[in-house]
């Protein structure tokens, strides 16, 4: 095996040194009756060209990856500067681990510190952690954190949160006596109904709202924090399309207590849903209730600045069952990709990419709205995603678009909202050209 340095002779010598005559004897402490007496039923070893060919073949069956696509719904196609993937492949980054030994991990610790800072700047919050698995688990952890802080178990969440995020929340809170209540949306605007906020009570741990929401509608977050705070609840904001931070007012300015987001849009490939990266930010006063790793500044005895993992007493390796979370390994390398992406685009780039998304989506939305038979059911302002109501079953239309025109036109909402048969969600990013958009519009016209 080429990944194993020692030759058979060296192995034999080493066995001899420790007083054994065969590799089998290394496993004497495993009782005979539970030893595997046969080879594993796994392929013969494959050579490098064979593995590549096999993987290329599998990849070629993912025909969706080559088609014009208007899919979003929590995972987005964005341009990532070339240097992002080159830099994360430096050995020193991708073959190191959690920076337990700061003297030989300053590279990792410093970028985590930069990542935390960038997340704070984007969200308008005071502190951010070193990452969570993804947006969905970050949201679940945010709710658990709010429950710890308020010592309450009820949760009021907007119906317009990504349905898979809600499913994850249900799993995470299944056994801690959580009561999940929903705040419905207005059929007119597609955003949260103000009167639904009356469901907030002195039992509510948190109000959770996504913006832009699952339908792409930008929620007006003004006043929501006040309403939540007036009953002693926390206000949690979820963002699945992180590029929107480049243009939209940050949740921190609306008084959010916790902001969580999916950071995949920051230079991370879609990769069939992972690995991505969860962003998690909060107020300084809650930092000790936060899950996950945190990097902070420390000095050596000569006064040199460095970085260390800090406030570890919140974590599982110290507090065990009393920890703020069970999370250990997070998404370090993906956080690095996001950091490099954000620093390369910088202030102007993030603003421009956000603006292009908004403009292109606005153009597509207008063109589709002009088509006879199609409409935009929600009047709310949108960023780069919007719902289209088609003249007939959306699944059929999308199927035809795919089969006849090789276009993935979006996501039929019936996947998550069975009653919304004619609605589909269209996402337009800076990677969609005007030609692609015009073509989509023409095809929709033809298929109606």
């Amino acid at each position, binding site marked *: 095996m080429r990944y194993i340095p*020692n030759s058979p002779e060296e192995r034999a*010598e080493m066995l001899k040194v420790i007083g054994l005559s065969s590799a089998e004897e290394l496993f004497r*402490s495993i009782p005979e009756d539970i030893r595997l007496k046969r080879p594993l039923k796994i392929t013969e070893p494959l050579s490098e060209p064979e593995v*590549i060919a096999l993987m290329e073949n599998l990849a070629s069956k993912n025909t969706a990856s080559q088609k014009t696509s208007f899919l979003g719904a929590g995972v987005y196609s964005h341009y990532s500067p070339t240097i992002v993937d080159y830099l994360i492949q430096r050995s020193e980054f991708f073959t190191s681990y959690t920076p337990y030994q700061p*003297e030989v991990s300053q590279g*990792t610790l410093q970028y985590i510190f930069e990542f935390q800072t960038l997340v704070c700047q984007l969200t308008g919050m005071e502190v951010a952690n070193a990452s969570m698995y993804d947006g969905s688990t970050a949201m679940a952890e945010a709710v658990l954190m709010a429950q710890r802080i308020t010592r309450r178990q009820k949760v009021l969440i907007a119906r317009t949160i990504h349905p898979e995020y809600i499913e994850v929340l249900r799993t995470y809170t299944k056994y801690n006596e959580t009561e999940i209540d929903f705040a419905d949306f207005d059929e007119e605007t597609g955003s949260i109904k103000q009167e639904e906020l009356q469901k907030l009570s002195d039992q509510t741990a948190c109000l959770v709202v996504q913006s832009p929401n699952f339908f792409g509608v930008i929620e007006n977050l003004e006043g929501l924090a006040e309403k939540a705070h007036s009953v002693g609840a926390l206000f949690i904001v979820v963002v699945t399309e992180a590029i929107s931070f480049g243009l939209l007012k940050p949740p921190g300015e609306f008084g959010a207590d916790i902001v969580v987001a999916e950071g995949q849009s920051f230079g991370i490939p879609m990769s069939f849903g992972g690995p991505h990266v969860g962003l998690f930010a909060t107020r300084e006063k809650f930092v000790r209730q936060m899950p996950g790793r945190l990097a902070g500044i420390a000095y050596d005895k000569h006064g040199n600045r460095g970085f260390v993992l800090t406030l570890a007493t919140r974590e599982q390796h110290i507090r065990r069952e009393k920890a703020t979370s069970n999370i250990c390994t997070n998404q370090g390398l993906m956080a690095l990709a996001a950091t490099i992406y954000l620093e390369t685009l910088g202030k102007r780039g993030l603003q421009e990419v956000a603006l292009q998304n908004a403009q292109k989506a606005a153009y597509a939305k207008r063109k589709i709205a002009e088509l006879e038979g199609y409409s935009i059911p929600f009047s709310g302002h949108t960023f780069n995603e919007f719902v289209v109501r088609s003249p007939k079953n959306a699944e059929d239309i999308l199927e035809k678009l795919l089969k006849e025109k090789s276009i993935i036109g979006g996501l039929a909402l019936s996947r998550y909202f069975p009653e919304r048969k004619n609605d589909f969600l269209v996402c337009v990013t800076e990677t969609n050209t005007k030609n692609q958009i015009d073509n989509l519009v023409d095809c929709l016209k033809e298929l109606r």
Partner: protein
Amino acid sequence: MSIKKVRQHPTQNEPLIFERSQKGRIGYRLPKLDVEETNLDEVIPEHLRRNDDLDGFPEVSEVDVVRHFTRMSTWNYSIDLGMYPLGSCTMKYNSRLNEKVARIPGFTNLHPLAPEEEAQGALELMYRLQEDLAEITGLPGVSLQPAAGAQGEMTGILLIRAFLDKRDGEASKDRRVMLVPDSAHGTNPASAQMAGFTVKTVKSTSEGLTDIQHLKQLCSEGGIAGLMLTNPNTVGIFEKNIREICEIIHEAGGLVYMDGANMNALVGVARPGDMGVDVIHLNLHKTFSTPHGGGGPGSGPCCCSAELEPFLPVPRIVKEGNRFRLDFNRPNSIGRVKAFYGNFGMMIRALSYIYTHGAEGLKEATETAVLNARYIAHHLADTFEKPFDSDCMHEVVFSHKKQARKGVHTIDIAKRLIDYGFHPMTIYFPLIVDGAMLIEPTESVGRQDLDAFIDAMKSIAKEAEENPQIVIDAPHTTRIGRLDEATAARKPILRWKPDMESMTKTA
């Protein structure tokens, strides 16, 4: 004074990107907007837009970014540089082939909500990996959804909870005790807590094994939902009574979850399913060599018995003829633990690892990992206190007991090891060994490097006798010395702000 000179070199003093930032620098170019512009106020009115101009956000060129990260990278130790014997973390070689295949555009450009018939390759890949993991563990039900080991643990424990609730109905509420050995990873009790269980701790014997008498006693107290057991355990010893342990738990009406963090000591040699284990998680980033990436991404598949299979997270991947599809209709499922299907990119790498090794290579890796650990154990047993006599598997634990007499502690030995060119071992874990040093060489280290490591450890032990201060003040060769972690935790500075002190603190 060469060390000082190196410290003054600009590559060693790379500031934070925010400190490097210069107004007006640009590091990107996008294609020009090709659609007719809409009045922005109509698209998104001003009150919904940010008005801070992303204040403080960096402005740098592409070259700045490349130098920034390349410089910082050189401050890290890494597997590619040398031996990284971090016990329990399995820092084995991460092949570039795995990186290459994970970047095939047909994988990276695939949207998780793409129509199933257009994503057959991804579904087939996941199905193949599931099959191989089932064969390796001897447990037929596999979900690849958990994002990391801790989430795999949580998934496993949720399966147990769901199974008990279904089996016992109302009576399940009297079964809420999860047994966890005192040697366990901290994630175990934390995960048990998240599934609504109360943790009771099982003691270890002086041999470093689970105390069967204590286990029986705890079981006799009743209410047992299950046991979370790492095997080989965290001191690197195989729990030889595993079958009896599983029987005791099963008799008490509970289930056995095995923490698969150390599965790399067993692949091809023994299977948890044959030992009586009901559910296990695997760390693809340990046993199957997906890169640790400075702390993730991990991937923590959960493998379970046929009995527990109906409870696995949705969706499941099913094969029908030659087609693969996602099955959401699983009424007993614990639900989702993550959006979409897991860390797919890590699954590609793990499958590439499995195929590259084949059955024989996987076994060779296991044997070599154990041989390397045993070789170290053999050579250092006279120099450092080895708290347990039993033969170790893939990792070996020592303590600082001998050196502590001279005032040299585990932390000092670890830091001094850096000066000898190695990454330190895992320190102060497991908690049952005072001043623990947990050494896991993995199979990716050749004999010369093992010998060099052994020499370094012996040399440090000698220094501890003759010149302890040199060990206590270590490391001496890094660009920064030991950092004041206590102050960092007392007055945490967790983000950059414009008025922040720069690189050096002026007294």
